[in-house]
Each structure stands twice: as structure tokens, then as C-alpha cells.
């Protein structure tokens, strides 16, 4: 048989190795070389402290007793990591944003930094976790006992309890050394994390090694193992759905609520992205851990003598087969599972004790309000070290008292359901702004009571704490309070019973009491920051605390005082402290100075609140918050006004831009118009001037002189007409035209127009219908006539047919009178039809006709003025215009 001394030596060497690993990690972290130390692989492995000795040894025992039910313990966390990934991420983000140190801190902080809630959760956790720590000590002791029994060394058998004590002391020392080295509460523990990551590998490796040995070395391969499993009683086992769901729920909830899980999952998390890896890698780890559980259980039951403890099959099976090396490896695996859990759980609990029980009571016992001072830190660290010792001692005492009689898994489940009572307050606090401290407190209290009454106290056994009579008839004969049949509902599995009633009453209390009571302002503020954490924390950066505070303060101060000013203040302080650069140690003096500097800029209340938010331990008073809220409201109001103003300015600017564009366009139009007028005026003036020069020279004969004088005369008339047209158009366009309404027949107007146009009726034949034109009109006869003259003379000018014809067709149309003027020329080209009513739109080809291109523009203005219209009619086989005249 193996030498017991060898086992002790190997264990000590292993412990020494862990010390070295942790020490190296701490050194690297201190030097800032945190690279792989904070990788997602290490993070995932550190999560494996979920797998304690309960899972390492206990899962096999569980499987031996209850078949596949042990899987639920793995399924809960797996579902959380995969399905509730977003919840874990939110917790991590909140933990980062709020610098949370523990699950108690989460609850306390969320509900207005409530001291009472912090104490409640801490007490609940200690009561729930102490048995669990005892369980780990027990498992180590039991596994040592296996070796001791075989070794024949009397001292070893006699002093097993002593072994447990030495293990407890060793773990306490390790935790104190690596858990409280740093003064700051939310510093990461790189040493501990790396050590438990190493232990995670060791326990996985050990369990798989044993599993492979059992399947291939003992059972004789996969097929043989399967036959054994089929033949075993375990294969007959059928799951109870309610118990499965209950167990999965409990283990999932515990995964989120267990202090040690919160420690590694949230507090030690250095990078949110590591969660992405962990969400698949951790379930994979759990899967590997559970792979060989059933084979080991079945083969163990088959081979080991009747009455052997199945919880220890992992060690006893290799031993019985003479594989001592493998047995030692298995022992180290179990040892790793136990120690890693104890270390982190103790650390987490000690943090809770020192932060939520010791520090608040120490502070209230002091009159000075120096919230941030070296004194407090000294007290915190000392209390944390003492708490580690006390908790370890409690675990040891519990272990001694319980005598190691209870099956491992049962203790684990008691612990799980106990700590699960935090869940409703946590979920409510993270997702529901309405949740408040009264609700959270009521929920936890009721849940705790139900758990204690229906599971924790009964776990000491019948007549342990609760007598058989109370189990049967309820306390004081109150039947509906029987521990396993609350409200008289019997026959439920005890675990489902406690999970169901405690969660129902707990959640109900959280919701109901929160609805019925009112939160204080700090709670409202914290509630918003927790529930809307993604709005409040844009960046999840990793901070090194001592530097981070100074850096945070500098960043904030720069925002308020400006960079140069802020850097001067910080550099001066750093020099005073004998440091280079501008990140001084954050001392109370310095904080006071900063607060004074900043209050000059933003007001005392705001400065106090902002500094308070950044410096640890300082709480913001309600008065401060109200003052901040007032100032903030003013700022919000002011910025809203600014926003409104700037929106208005933008509108004005846009309107100005549009006006400017319009003016520019108008200016371009004006330039083009003037340029056109210039051309139209200068052309006849050129002829007049040139011919008058010639005439003045006097060397011109009589005929030529008469001809030139005629040209001058015509060009003068042309100029006059142009000016008349321009003036006319100006009046019409300005809308100030005076209409001279008179009565007359359409035939009369057309007669006058034909006459006035000067058209030669021997060259252009005009066809008209007398009876259609016998319509009496009431309009401005002169203006209408002007339009007709224009249209008729256009025919004379532009109709290019050999025998020009003009047809004037009159017909009533839509309550108006339509008068069409159609000739038989080529008409207006399609591309020009849209512009002929614009000023100076004289078509280039028709330039010879001498018009300035104002006629149709004037016609359109006239027809608009008298309430009618004029349009070009395409497709009439020539130029065709329709004039519409109102007839009523």
C-alpha cells in the first residue's frame, strides 16, 4: 500500500506549487504584465470553482444513488451561461460600473447603499456557505482517511480531525496572503485566480484520467462499460420531471448568487469579452467533468464491496486496483476542487463581512466623517483577515459538529437553495427600476425564513433541531406550517417544496412590497444606473484601482477646470508627494482640495457629489443629490433652450440660404433680361446712328436719302413699340393693371383686331363663323383685342405656308369661351412650345420678323388678368393658340 507520508509530501508539494503559481501571478500583475493572466481562458477556468469537491467526489456518489439526476447540477449553470448570457453580461457590466465587491454589495448598492440589506445578505451567505466549506474539509479528510486506512500508520488514523484543521489553517493562510495583499477592495486577485485556474486543470485531468482508467482499464472498454451500465440499477432510474426542473433551476440560480461565483464571474472579470468565450467553454468544461461520472459510479458499485461510500469511488477504485499513482492524482483533483472553492468562498465572505458589517459599524462609531482615509483601509484589511480566519473556523467547527454524517450532495443543495434567496432581489434590482429596498428586504427575509424552516433546520435531521412532532403536526400544532408540507400541501419532493415556496413567497414579497412602498432618492438613482447600465457605462475598461482613482479624478477635473488648470493642480500635488508626473496618491487632503477647486466651477453640491462618486467609501447624502438634481435640471433646461435656439437658428439660416438662392436666381434672370433689352434697344439704334451718319456726310443721292430716312423712321417706331411693350409688361407683371370692363360681341373684337393687325387679307385668307362669334362679352375689350392682334399679326409674320390661312374657331368650353387661332404653317417646334410665353423667347429662326419676343408674354399676362387663359395647341397641323375667355 501507498505510504501515507508520501501522500502528505505530495500534498505539501502541491500546495507549495500553488503558492508559487499565485506568487508569480501576483508579481506579474504588480509589474503590469497582466496579458494572459486576464485572458478569457483563465477566466473560464476560474469559473470552474463551481465544481467543488461536491461535484468531484459527490457527483459519482450522486449518480450511484440517484442515477442521472446529478446532471441537473451541471445543466443549471450551462443554461445560464448559454441562455442567460445577457443577464451575466449585465451583471458584469454593473459590477464594473459600480465597482461591486460582492453579491451583498450588489444588493446593498442597488437598493440605495442600504447597510441593512448588506448585512442581511452577508448573514444569509455565511449561514448558507459555512456548511459548504465544512463539506469541503470533510471531503478532503475523508479522502485522506482512505489512504490512512490503507497505510496502517496509527497516527494518521487517529489524527484525521487534526488533518482537517491543518488543511483549514493552510487554506486560511493562503487566502489571507493572496486575498488581502492589496488594500483595495475591488482589486483583482490575479494570484488566486491563476491558482484556481491551475486547480481547474488538475481536477479535470484527474477525473478524466480516473474515468479512462475505469472504462478501459477496469471495465474493459466502452462496450463492456455500456453493458455494465445497462445491467445496473441506475439504468432503471426514471427522472421525476418536477425534481429535474427544480434542481436545474436551483443550480442555475445558485450559479448566479453564490458569493464565490459572483467573485470570479463579476468581481475578478477584467474583460467583458471573456464572457463570450466562457459562454461556450465553461459548459464544455462541465460536460467533460460529467463525462465519466456514470461509468465510475456503475463500475464502483459493481466492484467495490457492499457499503463502500460511493462519494469516494474516484479514489478508492484506483486504490483497489493497485493504481496508487492514479489514486494520488485523483486525491489531488479532489483536493483542488475543495481548496479552490474554500479559498474563493472564504475570500468572498470575508469581503462581505468587512465591507458590510465591520466597516459600517466602525464608521458609525466614529464621529469624524473622513470616509476616505488610510484608517478605514487599515480597518477593512484587518477585518478581512480576521473574517477569513473566523469563517474558516466556523467551517471547521461545523465540520466537527456535523460529524461528516450527511451525504455530500445534500449539504450542497441546502447551500444552493439558501443562497438562491438573493435571486429575486437581484433580478428585480437589475431589471426593474420599481424594485426598492423594502421589497428586497422583505423578499430575502421571507425566502430565508422559508428556507430555514423547510430545508436548513430539517437538514440537521429529525430531532436534530426540529422534533418529529413538529414535522408531523407543525409548530405549536399549526398544521399548515409543517416543514415539508407548507400550507397543507403534501407529497411534494422536499427540494421542489423548498424551491417552489421560497421562490414564490420571496418574489411575491419583492414585487408586492416594492409596489406598496416608496424608494428614497438614492435608490432611484442607483436603480436607474443598474437597470440602464448600458446607457451609463459606455466603456468597460479595466482599471488598476490606485492609479485609476487618480486618473478618474484627473479626467473629471479636466472636464471641469480645463486641461491646463487641472494638470497644474495634479502636478503640484504629485510634486508635494515627491512623485513625478501628474498622478498623485489620492489622499483625503487632496480630495478636499480638489473639491474646493471644483466647487468654484460647478457649485459645492455638485463637486461633493462628483468627488463622492469617484472616491471609495464616500456616500452621497440625499441633500447632495437633491442639490445635484436641481443643478442638473437647470442645466438640462438650459441646454434644451440652447437646443431650441440652435434649431431656430438653423431654420433661419436655411430660410436665408433659400432667399439668397432665390435672389441669386433672380439676379441671373435680371442680368439676362437687361442683356436682352440692351440687345433689343441697341440693334435699331445702331441702324439709326449709322444711317444718320451717312445722311450727315451729305454725299448721298435723293433716292438713297429717302430710303435711309425711311429706315431711320421704321427703326424709331420699332424702338417705341419695344418700349411700349416693356412698360406694358411691367404693369401687367406687377399686377397693378387697371381693367376697363365693357360690353361687346366677340365678332366686333375680332373685326377690330384683324383691322388693327394690318394683315393683308389678300395674302392670308381668314375663315370665321359669324353665328359662333355672336356672343356678348363683358370684359376689357381693348386688352382682349390686343391679344387677338398679337396672334393675328404672328400669323402674318411667321406662317410659312405658300397660301397662308387663318381659321378662327369659337366654341363654348367648360363654362368659358374658347377661341382658337390656327394657321397652316409648320407651327412651333415641340421643344419650343413650352417657352414661347416667356419674355424674349423669340425663336431664333424667326428673328427676321423683327419682334422682340414680348408679344406672347404680354398676351399671357393679359389673359391672366382678365380671368381667362392662353395656351398653345399642339398637333393642329400648324401654329394654333387657344384663348379662353370667361363668359359669366
Amino acid at each position, binding site marked *: 500500500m501507498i505510504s501515507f507520508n508520501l501522500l502528505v509530501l505530495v500534498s505539501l508539494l502541491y500546495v507549495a506549487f500553488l503558492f508559487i503559481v499565485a506568487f508569480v501571478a501576483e508579481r506579474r500583475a504588480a509589474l503590469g504584465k497582466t496579458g494572459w493572466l486576464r485572458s478569457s481562458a483563465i477566466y473560464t477556468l476560474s469559473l470552474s470553482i463551481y465544481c467543488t469537491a461536491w461535484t468531484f467526489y459527490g457527483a459519482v456518489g450522486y449518480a450511484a444513488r440517484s442515477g442521472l439526476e446529478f446532471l441537473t447540477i451541471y445543466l443549471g449553470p450551462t443554461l445560464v451561461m448559454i441562455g442567460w448570457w445577457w443577464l451575466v453580461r449585465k451583471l458584469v457590466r454593473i459590477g464594473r460600473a459600480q465597482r461591486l465587491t460582492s453579491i451583498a454589495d450588489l444588493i446593498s448598492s442597488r437598493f440605495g447603499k442600504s447597510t441593512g440589506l448588506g448585512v442581511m445578505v452577508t448573514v444569509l451567505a455565511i449561514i448558507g456557505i459555512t456548511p459548504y466549506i465544512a463539506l469541503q474539509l470533510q471531503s478532503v479528510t475523508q479522502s485522506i482517511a482512505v489512504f490512512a486506512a490503507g497505510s496502517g500508520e496509527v497516527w494518521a488514523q487517529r489524527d484525521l480531525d487534526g488533518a482537517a484543521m491543518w488543511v483549514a489553517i493552510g487554506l486560511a493562510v493562503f487566502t489571507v496572503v493572496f486575498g488581502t495583499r492589496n488594500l483595495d477592495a475591488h482589486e483583482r486577485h490575479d494570484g488566486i485566480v491563476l491558482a484556481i485556474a491551475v486547480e481547474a486543470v488538475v481536477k479535470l485531468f484527474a477525473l478524466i484520467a480516473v474515468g479512462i482508467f475505469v472504462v478501459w482499464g477496469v471495465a474493459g472498454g466502452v462496450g463492456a462499460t455500456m453493458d455494465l451500465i445497462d445491467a445496473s440499477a441506475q439504468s432503471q432510474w426514471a427522472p421525476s420531471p418536477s425534481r429535474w426542473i427544480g434542481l436545474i433551476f436551483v443550480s442555475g440560480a445558485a450559479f448566479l448568487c453564490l458569493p464565490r461565483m459572483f467573485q470570479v464571474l463579476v468581481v475578478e472579470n477584467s474583460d467583458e469579452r471573456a464572457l463570450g468565450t466562457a459562454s461556450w467553454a465553461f459548459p464544455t468544461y462541465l460536460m467533460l467533468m460529467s463525462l465519466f461520472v456514470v461509468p465510475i459510479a456503475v463500475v464502483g458499485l459493481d466492484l467495490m464491496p457492499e457499503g463502500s461510500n460511493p462519494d469516494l469511488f474516484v479514489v478508492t477504485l484506483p486504490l483497489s486496483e493497485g493504481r496508487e499513482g492514479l489514486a494520488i492524482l485523483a486525491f489531488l483533483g479532489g483536493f483542488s476542487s475543495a481548496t479552490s472553492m474554500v479559498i474563493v468562498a472564504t475570500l468572498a465572505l470575508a469581503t462581505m463581512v468587512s465591507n458590510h458589517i465591520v466597516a459600517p459599524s466602525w464608521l458609525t462609531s466614529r464621529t469624524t466623517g473622513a470616509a476616505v482615509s488610510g484608517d478605514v483601509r487599515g480597518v477593512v484589511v484587518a477585518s478581512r483577515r480576521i473574517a477569513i480566519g473566523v469563517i474558516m473556523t466556523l467551517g471547521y467547527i461545523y465540520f466537527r459538529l456535523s460529524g461528516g454524517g450527511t451525504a455530500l450532495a445534500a449539504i450542497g443543495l441546502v447551500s444552493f437553495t439558501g443562497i438562491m434567496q438573493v435571486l429575486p432581489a437581484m433580478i428585480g434590482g437589475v431589471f426593474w427600476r420599481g424594485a426598492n429596498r423594502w421589497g428586497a428586504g422583505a423578499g430575502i427575509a421571507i425566502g430565508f425564513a422559508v428556507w430555514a424552516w423547510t430545508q436548513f433546520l430539517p437538514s440537521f435531521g429529525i430531532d436534530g433541531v426540529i422534533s418529529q412532532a413538529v414535522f408531523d403536526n407543525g409548530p405549536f400544532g399549526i398544521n399548515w406550517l409543517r416543514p415539508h408540507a407548507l400550507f397543507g400541501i403534501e407529497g411534494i419532493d422536499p427540494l421542489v417544496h423548498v424551491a417552489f415556496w421560497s421562490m414564490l413567497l420571496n418574489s411575491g414579497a419583492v414585487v408586492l412590497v416594492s409596489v406598496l412602498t416608496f424608494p428614497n432618492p438614492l435608490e432611484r438613482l442607483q436603480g436607474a444606473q443598474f437597470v440602464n447600465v448600458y446607457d451609463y457605462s459606455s466603456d468597460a475598461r479595466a482599471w488598476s484601482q490606485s492609479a485609476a482613482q487618480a486618473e478618474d479624478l484627473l479626467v473629471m477635473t479636466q472636464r471641469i477646470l480645463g486641461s491646463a488648470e487641472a494638470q497644474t493642480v495634479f502636478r503640484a500635488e504629485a510634486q508635494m508627494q515627491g512623485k513625478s508626473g501628474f498622478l498623485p496618491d489620492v489622499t483625503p487632503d487632496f480630495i478636499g482640495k480638489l473639491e474646493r477647486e471644483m466647487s468654484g466651477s460647478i457649485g459645492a453640491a455638485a463637486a461633493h457629489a462628483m468627488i463622492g462618486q469617484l472616491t471609495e467609501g464616500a456616500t452621497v447624502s440625499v441633500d447632495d443629490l437633491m442639490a445635484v438634481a436641481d443643478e442638473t435640471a437647470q442645466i438640462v433646461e438650459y441646454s434644451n433652450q440652447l437646443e431650441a435656439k440652435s434649431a431656430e437658428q438653423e431654420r433661419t439660416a436655411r430660410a436665408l440660404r433659400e432667399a439668397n438662392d432665390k435672389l441669386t436666381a433672380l439676379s441671373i434672370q435680371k442680368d439676362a433680361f437687361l*442683356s436682352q433689352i*440692351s*440687345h*433689343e434697344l*441697341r*440693334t*435699331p*439704334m*445702331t*441702324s*439709326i*446712328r*449709322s*444711317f444718320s*451718319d*451717312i445722311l450727315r*456726310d451729305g*454725299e448721298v443721292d435723293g433716292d438713297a436719302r429717302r430710303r435711309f430716312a425711311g*429706315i431711320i423712321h421704321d*427703326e424709331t417706331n420699332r424702338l417705341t413699340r419695344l418700349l411700349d411693350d416693356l412698360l406694358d409688361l411691367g404693369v401687367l407683371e406687377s399686377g397693378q393693371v387697371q381693367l376697363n370692363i365693357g360690353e361687346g360681341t366677340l365678332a366686333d373684337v375680332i373685326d377690330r383686331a384683324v383691322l388693327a393687325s394690318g394683315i393683308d387679307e389678300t395674302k392670308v385668307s381668314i375663315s370665321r363663323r359669324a353665328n359662333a362669334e355672336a356672343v356678348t362679352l363683358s370684359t376689357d375689350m381693348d386688352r382682349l383685342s390686343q391679344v387677338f392682334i398679337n396672334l393675328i399679326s404672328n400669323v402674318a409674320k411667321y406662317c410659312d405656308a405658300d397660301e397662308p390661312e387663318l381659321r378662327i374657331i369659337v366654341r363654348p368650353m367648360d363654362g368659358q369661351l374658347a377661341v382658337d387661332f390656327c394657321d397652316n404653317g409648320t407651327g412651333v417646334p415641340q421643344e419650343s412650345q413650352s417657352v414661347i410665353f416667356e419674355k424674349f423667347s423669340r425663336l*431664333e*429662326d424667326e*428673328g*427676321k420678323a423683327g419682334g422682340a419676343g414680348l408679344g406672347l408674354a404680354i398676351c399671357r399676362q393679359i389673359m391672366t388678368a382678365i380671368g381667362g387663359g392662353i395656351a398653345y395647341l399642339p398637333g393642329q397641323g400648324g401654329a394654333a393658340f387657344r384663348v379662353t375667355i370667361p363668359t359669366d
Partner: protein
Amino acid sequence: MGQRVLLIEDEPNIIEAVSYILSRDGWTVHTHSDGETAIEKVMQGVPDLIILDVMLPGRSGYDILRDLRAAAETKDTPVMMLTARGQAKDRELAIGLGATQFMTKPFSNAEVLESVRALAGS
């Protein structure tokens, strides 16, 4: 003398006036009143001087000038631009395109004669 001047202008009265004074001064005056076919007309027999109106039916005087300056036959032919739009930018445009002389309507006969003599004589 007897040098040839080509007048490209669309206003009949102006054609008559300019032709009259130049003929009287001894020049051989050819006229053309369409923008589109002006280049063809020039190329039928490059004159000693071209008087070119800006606003022509079919094609603007500026475009015609650009083509004249691009063609080997006419790149050195003196061109006097006439325009009824007397703005500074019109003058700049014309000179920039290579016009030898720029004259704004209405002009005095003496001015025209003087310029024509100066350009064709050079």
C-alpha cells in the same frame, strides 16, 4: 485697295449700313446672315477681314470665332466682333477667344472705318 471684308450679321438694316460705308471706302464687302453656315462661307474664300456679330441665328459669334481660330486658314485673319450687349465680360470673352477688335453697337461709322483700315492694313 480692293481688299475683301466679310460681314456676318443678321440684322438687314445694319448689313445695309455697314456695306454702304465700307463699299464707299473702297472695300469689297461680302455679307452672310446665318450663324450655322458662317464657317462654310468663310472657307469658300478667306477674306482679309471678318466682321462678326455675336447674336446670330443658328450659332453664336463666339463659337464661330473659336472655330476660326482653330482652323489653319483663318487663325491669323483679323476678326472684328460686333455686339449689342455692351458688357465688360462680353469684351473679355471675345478677346480671350482671339478677337482682334471688339466693337459695341451702336457705333459711329468713323469708328468702323478706322478700325477696318487699321486691321486690314496691318
